[in-house]
């Protein structure tokens, strides 16, 4: 029965629920395979092919979805089977051979394989014999998934699945029950700070744009994600791009903007293709374009691609790249909220920042503000609300993508959840917040640091985009520092000479030191270069570019001393050490 007052969204929601019901409680099993970037690297697409071939051969019908990442990257390729109305049974590190067996015995035969399963998700009453609850896995138990709420659970290319799981109720609520000012107010109340690096409050930044009366305004979403070791932005876009598309649309409503761009690096196909797929469906359902959900709000979104350039993630360089130019940062002022992309007022946010927005609007800013760390003005702590979306890689037992409340300690994340360093080795250091974040020793004091933007800053590190690379006792700090500076040198856009030449010079000195040819003066020389870079560089790349060296000297100065004074290696670095000496042509 169609009530006369039914809104356009109610009809979409009813259809989405009908489809979801059919998927999860219809007459066919549902097989989901992780095919994000880590899933692909582990062989996820080969598993999909084996599943499809075996289904055909067994003449069994089942729904097969290529999903993004559940975050348990260490266990990729991850495959799960959900029989109608049943729990999901997960299998890890699935080979094509194991996939074939799972299809024959579990999907066709109805018998799960407890010896190969890593857990189940669903009602404990339905627990399959001999299989534990995946929710009790240390990597899952302490998570609080907001931005990642759908990751690994829904087909990222199917907007109906997002809607059936609560998606677009926030946009519908904002458009029908809230004014743009109310919507902006909820984001202000939430205390949401930008997750792209600088942790600037999103509500305040949106306010700059909202206050600009220009009729043509842009919201830009930054998925450049050039930070090696960070894969959460792409993880969100390859697993649940719709939350970002809804988030950018809500930002457009709150700021009275009319166009959005989601900016992704060329070649990252899962994020690009899946984002484009949900944008297309959003247009078809009237969730983008003219008069969204029958209101007088109109908003357009498209994906823009950049070439390989780390600095194109800097906000003004990103605008140059969207305009199709060399991605070199602009001078500020004017600031983006006055003159942004194509000369129009613009607001730019990271993927994670926008991914939170639908849940903030749906549940209220107070709810989000209640998660995380409170302000502590005496210690210059502004408070960090919400969660941290962390990428764990390197020498750590469980690598992956997790979302935990801010305020948790590094020790809880790295040991209680991720299982510490494998092979009985000890943890030596962490590299956080991208190469510019430098290194943090794994000392007791540092492991007790709580996840909080200002606490990290005070410790000389950057929580930033959430990448945490763990290095064990075998890692040579001199060599790692040189690797980080080689990255910074390669990625300098070349606009200002302190950064362009300073990075090259630093790299030369670090190569000298690692070849045991460094001199006492080299440490002072590096400090001098670093000070000049900080003072004379236009963007954060040059300003923060000395961090890898200064942080390494702060925590591991003795290793540099051994190389310089005693002409002695402190690790077992290979003689012919690889060091890219590339510059931009």
């Amino acid at each position, binding site marked *: 029965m169609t009530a006369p007052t039914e809104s356009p969204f109610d009809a979409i929601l009813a259809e989405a629920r009908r489809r979801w019901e059919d998927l999860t409680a219809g007459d066919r099993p549902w097989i989901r395979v992780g095919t994000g970037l880590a899933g692909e690297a582990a062989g996820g697409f080969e598993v999909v092919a084996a599943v499809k071939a075996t289904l055909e051969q067994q003449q069994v019908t089942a729904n097969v979805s290529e999903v993004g990442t559940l975050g348990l990257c260490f266990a990729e390729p991850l495959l799960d089977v959900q029989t109608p109305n049943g729990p999901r049974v997960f299998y890890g590190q699935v080979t094509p051979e194991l996939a074939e067996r799972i299809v024959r015995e579990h999907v066709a035969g109805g018998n799960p394989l407890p010896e190969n399963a890593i857990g189940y998700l669903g009602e404990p009453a339905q627990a399959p014999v001999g299989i534990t609850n995946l929710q009790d896995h240390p990597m899952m138990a302490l998570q609080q998934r907001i931005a990642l709420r759908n990751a690994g659970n829904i087909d990222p290319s199917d907007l109906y699945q997002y809607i059936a799981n609560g998606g677009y109720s926030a946009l519908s609520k904002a458009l029908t029950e809230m004014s743009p000012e109310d919507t902006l107010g909820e984001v202000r109340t939430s205390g949401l700070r930008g997750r792209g690096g600088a942790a600037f409050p999103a509500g305040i930044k949106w306010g700059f744009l909202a206050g600009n009366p220009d009729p043509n305004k842009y919201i830009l979403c930054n998925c450049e994600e050039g930070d090696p070791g960070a894969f959460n932005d792409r993880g969100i876009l390859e697993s649940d791009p719709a939350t970002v598309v809804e988030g950018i649309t809500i930002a457009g409503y709150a700021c009275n903007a009319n166009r959005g761009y989601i900016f992704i690096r060329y070649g990252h196909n899962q994020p690009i293709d899946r984002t484009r797929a949900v944008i297309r469906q959003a247009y078809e359902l009237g969730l983008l374009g003219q008069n969204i959900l029958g209101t007088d709000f109109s908003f357009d979104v498209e994906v823009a691609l950049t070439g*390989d350039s780390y600095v194109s993630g800097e906000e003004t360089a990103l605008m140059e790249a969207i305009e199709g130019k060399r991605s070199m940062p602009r001078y500020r002022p004017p600031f983006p909220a006055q003159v942004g992309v194509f000369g129009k007022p613009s607001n730019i946010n990271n993927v994670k920042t926008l991914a939170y927005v639908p849940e903030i609007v749906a549940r209220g800013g107070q709810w989000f503000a209640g998660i995380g760390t409170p302000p502590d003005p005496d210690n210059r702590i502004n408070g960090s609300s919400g969660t941290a979306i962390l990428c764990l890689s390197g020498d750590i037992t469980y690598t992956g993508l997790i979302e935990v409340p801010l305020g948790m300690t590094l020790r809880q994340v790295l040991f209680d959840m991720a299982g510490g360093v494998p092979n009985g080795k000890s943890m030596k250091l962490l590299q956080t917040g991208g190469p510019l974040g430098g290194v943090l020793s794994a000392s007791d004091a540092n492991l007790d640091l709580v996840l909080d933007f200002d606490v990290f800053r005070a410790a000389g590190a950057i929580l930033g985009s959430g990448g945490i690379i763990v290095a064990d006792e075998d890692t040579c700090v001199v060599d790692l520092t040189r690797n980080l500076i080689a990255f910074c040198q390669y990625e300098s856009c070349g606009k200002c000479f302190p950064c362009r030449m300073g990075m090259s010079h630093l790299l030369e000195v670090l190569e000298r030191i690692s070849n045991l040819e460094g001199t006492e003066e080299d440490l002072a020389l590096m400090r001098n270069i670093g000070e000049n870079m900080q003072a004379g560089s236009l963007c954060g790349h040059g300003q923060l570019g000395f961090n890898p060296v200064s942080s390494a000297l702060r925590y591991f100065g003795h290793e540099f001393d051994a190389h310089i004074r005693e002409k002695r290696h402190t690790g077992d670095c290979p003689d012919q050490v690889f060091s890219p000496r590339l510059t931009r042509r």
Partner: protein
Amino acid sequence: MDDATFQLIDRAVNDQPQSTVTVLSSLLAVEDAIGYIPTEAVEAVAVRMDATVNDVWAVATFYPNFRFDPPTDLRVEVCWGPSCHVMGATAVIAAAQEALGLSDEGDTLDGKATLRYNTCLGACAHAPVMAINHHLAGRITPDSARSRIASALATAPAH
């Protein structure tokens, strides 16, 4: 340049699906279609965008994505980002160089294969990572790098 290639360029530049078309988006479309940016493509982009040839070259030479001569059949990328570095990328890169007979990035002498360094292939959780013709493979060892390259070389068409 043969007609077929020229038509691919023409289509890539003039039939872009998205509504914002720029010099960079046009160059990426050409790279996607034929794997390199010949002079003819620079000219086609300049005409389409009402830009000078110099403007187009300025963008094409800034981003390391673009190559200016026809690609080889086998593109091997190895990651040297810090996650991969910590997990042993140095030895993987040396093995890849050895397997291809190269001492640095670039094309092999027989024109069959190309080695490229990448700052992060995005699968850091499975470091060290490499990609063969854009297909990612993780947890690579020097031995598995050598054997993956050898089998890819064996199936790549001869020149």
